């Protein structure tokens, strides 16, 4: 299950672009640095591939455990 650390996000959009399931989207809330940050639109569809986490330049996405999305 994807865990997004909003305070680290800079809204580059790489996670949204590379998600193979296209279930990430940039939200309308800003973090404390003024950046919009992503959220999962369909947590059940996440396949825990970790491409979003791997591509995130800031390490703002982690996948603590597999399979419990």
């Amino acid at each position: 299950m994807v865990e997004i650390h909003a305070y680290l996000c800079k809204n580059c959009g790489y996670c949204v672009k590379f998600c193979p399931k296209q279930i990430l989207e940039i939200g309308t809330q800003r973090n404390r640095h003024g950046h919009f940050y992503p959220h999962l639109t369909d947590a059940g569809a996440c396949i825990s591939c970790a491409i979003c986490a791997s591509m995130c330049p800031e390490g703002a996405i982690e996948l603590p455990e597999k399979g419990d999305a």
Partner: protein
Amino acid sequence: MAVYKRPELIADAPSGYCPGCLHSLATKLVAEAIEELGQADNALNVISVGCSALNILYWSGDFLSVAHGRAPAAATGIKRTNPERLVFAYQGDGDLAAIGLAEIMSAANRGENFTVVFANNQTYGMTGGQMAPTTLIGQKTTTTVYGRDPQTTGYPMKMCELISTLEAPVYVARFALNSPKGVNDARKGLKKAFRLQMEGKGFTFIELLTNCPTNWKMTPLQTLEYMNTNTIPYFKPGVYKDKEAQA
């Protein structure tokens, strides 16, 4: 077990890099590779001048910040006096391919047993986007406003190709960080370079193609596309020298 965990070698705070800058991704990959090898407490980052110097705040492990272009020279001294440590120099293209060209070529030629991580974004990012030795033909920068003209400024320098012609280096490779495949390959390449260093094999050189959304004057996603259509055809990713595979 975690599928993906943020490396502890990078600070638990946003990096100093601009949004979408692949420098921070490069730093994260280096941290991941070192942690996967269990060398987190043993690693020493020799930080050069330029945007790479933002690692001073971002890197949580040991580091030494050195003079412009002289990271391979400093790393030589560090590694020779502390041979048990994992030493790597983290340099940008202005630092490595311009002011530090003598140091990198000499260190590579001597086959010093450390790793150089070369982040190539084809511009001087920190000082305002001037032309670097690696700037592509036709690429606009603040000092080549009509695009780089080889008649007056020469051609982009291919550091991997140059270094791979030397006898001493054991592993020379280039990876592009603009796709998940490139990032995975880069992680493996970095891990291999650090492993070879810890085995005492010799000089290893990893070039990572990165971007500069601020000075290329593009959005982060546009820079990834620009890299596909312009950077990668000129700076071709691949392994340029691998003595281990040849043996």
